[in-house]
């Protein structure tokens, strides 16, 4: 799994590439630590190239969401594929995030 973080103004774009499974989660968590700690502004999770997510990945999303909410920020999940949308739906995550195409 690859994580690319870019900053545009007060919004941060996190591009996730590949499978966000249990194996990848610890590394992704580590990569997102600075953003979780400073979850201000808008955090955009670009999922256009994310092919898979498991509960551990969802947990990272949720952690980020909670951190952002505490700081008054905002998390946008962008371009999830249908399979992941199904997972989001199944888990009620669709209601927790702003999903953008």
């Amino acid at each position, binding site marked *: 799994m690859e994580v690319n973080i870019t900053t545009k103004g007060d919004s941060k774009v996190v591009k996730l590439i590949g499978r966000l499974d*249990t*194996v990848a989660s610890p590394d992704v968590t580590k990569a997102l630590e600075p953003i979780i700690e400073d979850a201000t502004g808008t955090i955009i999770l670009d999922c256009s190239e994310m092919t*898979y997510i498991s*509960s551990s990945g969802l947990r990272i999303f949720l952690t980020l969401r*909670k951190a952002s909410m505490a700081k008054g920020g905002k998390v946008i999940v962008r371009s999830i594929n249908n399979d992941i949308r199904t*997972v989001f739906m*199944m888990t009620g995550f669709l209601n927790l995030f702003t999903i953008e195409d």
Partner: protein
Amino acid sequence: MKLKDVDRKALLRPALAGAALVIVAVLTLEGTSILQYVFSQKGLKEEASLRAESQLEATRNQIMDVIDQAEAAVRNSIWLASWCMEVPDSLHRVAERLVEDNPVIIGSTVALVPGYFKKFPLYAPYALRDGDSIVLKSLAGEEYDYPSREWFVKPLETGAGYWSEPYIDEGGGEILMTTYSVPIRDKKGNVAAVLTADLSLDWLTELVGNVKVYPNAFSVMLSRTGRFMVCPAETLVMHRTINEFVVGLDERSKEIDSLAKAMLSGKEGNMPIKYKGATSYIYFSPVERTGWSMSIVIPDAEIFGGVRRIGLWVKLFQILGILMIVLIIRSVFISSLKYRAMNASREKMESELQIASAIQMAMIPKIFPPFPERKDLDMAATIVPAKEVSGDLYDFYIREEKLIFCIGDVSGKGVPASLVMAVTRSLFRSFSAHDFGPAHIVQTMNESMSADNANNMFVTFFCGVLDLKNGHLKYCNAGHNAPFILTDKIAELPVKSNIPLGVIPGFKFQEQEVDMVSDDAIFLYTDGLNEAENINHELFGTDRVKAVLHTRRGSMEHLNAVDEAVREFVGDAPQSDDLTMLFIHYTAPDGKSSGKRSLVLDNVIAEISKLAPFVESIADEKGLDPSLAMSLNLALEEAATNVIMYAYPEGTNGPVCLDAVIGENSLEFILSDKGKPFDPTAKPDADITLGVEERGIGGLGIFMVKNIMDSVTYERSEDGKNILTMIKKI
């Protein structure tokens, strides 16, 4: 012909050769030393002759000098004496002058023939040197009676000069003397007197006594009558004649007699004389006019002593040399004996090893195909020992439709390894007779083998039990190389290494399992294959093994192909280790896929990555929609993660097994572990309706499993396993 005869004959030859060598060496050394001795003896003899003869000549010349002087002096006085006959008062002057003028002459007389002068019937004035002066005496005393003396008689008889027998002068200091006397005639030609000159022979004793041709050689001078004049034995001097001496000898011989005779008769020559075991060479020569005979006696030891001493040393060295040759030949002979004995015992050992090898090979199945009537199994195996006997083993047999097989490699090679191999094989047979659990079989074997392992031999071992009905393979690896499993690709069978047999008693071996589908094969081998070395010490390696296995063939063809590849690679390098291969090609009973797939994971998160290809292959086989595949993957990941994280106490290892049974309309996944009892289904579902703040971090996984799967059930099996069965309708 008996073996012993052969041995004896075989031994005889080197013994004879050794003896011949010694004899030749002795003869050569002896021959050359004899030749050398003979030649040097001859040379020495010649040299001795030369020395003796020249010494004789020189001494004789010196004697003759004195003799000549004396004779000349006397001769020169004859005229004067003759003239003085007219004036008898002056006769003493003749004698005095003779002594005065000639230092060699110590005394002189003119002794008249008795009655020549009527006035003096006896008249003999005698001049005698006394220190520097000359004393005049008269010899005409009654008691001396000169007319009867030899010196007086002989010249008158012969009418010529005469040298008297040497004598000891009683009057003048016990010195050895000789007298030369000549007759004197008066003017009428009548014999009137005898003129004498007395010569001291002290110089002669000294001269002759000092003749030293060799340190221990000596000279002897005999008078005309054979009396000893000069001789080292002083008691003989003037007291004995040679004849008296010869008569008195302990060992008289003809040679001594003839020597005495020759010397007495004034002959010249040399003679070897043997006396009391010692030989002396005697060189003799006459002294003219005096009738004396001079001889030089050289003991044989004097001439040849040097060469004999050298000869002695030479002999000593020869003996040492021969001794050494004998010792060398002996040691060569003994070592050749030992070599023969060793050869014999080695041959015996080799033949015993061949028998051992044959016995050993008879223990393991060697007929291929081993089960010709079976359509579901094609097997082949080879074992190529590096030495006569092998420390490798394989074995297999079918019991209750299960193939029980093993492969093993005993540490070390040769006989000790082969004995352990035999033990291992029989333990395998006995412990697997009532047991289908490879781990249990291996564990029991390990207990047996490590209990009494004084020599610290160990065995890497792989034991498998293949259920021929469904292709389910249970296996346990005890430190052996991972076998290859040939499915649609070639991969190493995942193995836990555990530890080799015989190392630690009480070790808990872990069992693993995998499902083989129709046409899958398993290739087991010992490290003699991948560690086969060529002359550049490069290893054959598993990649080359894989490359050869890539083309699917019959089992025996596979082994032949691998064998050929190894041989080609190794070339002329010697085989360093036993090489054993076992190939098992499984065909499901219905000829189709068994419909069952298995995956065994270690309880570490990284193992989760294996799920995706596993699900993928099932999805491929069943032609599943990728979204379904993904959600199956997700469900299995969540379920497996749960087990990996929570089933086994932290820090301990345990297997997480996932079996997939692929049915027509459903997929059944069975996740099992031997961890602590845990029922994930008992957990309340996560409440997905909660908002962000209220949402917990956990509980999502199992919730998703339940969501994705059509049925999720948990059971705790009797043998202590958590079994989670998940069914998905398709």
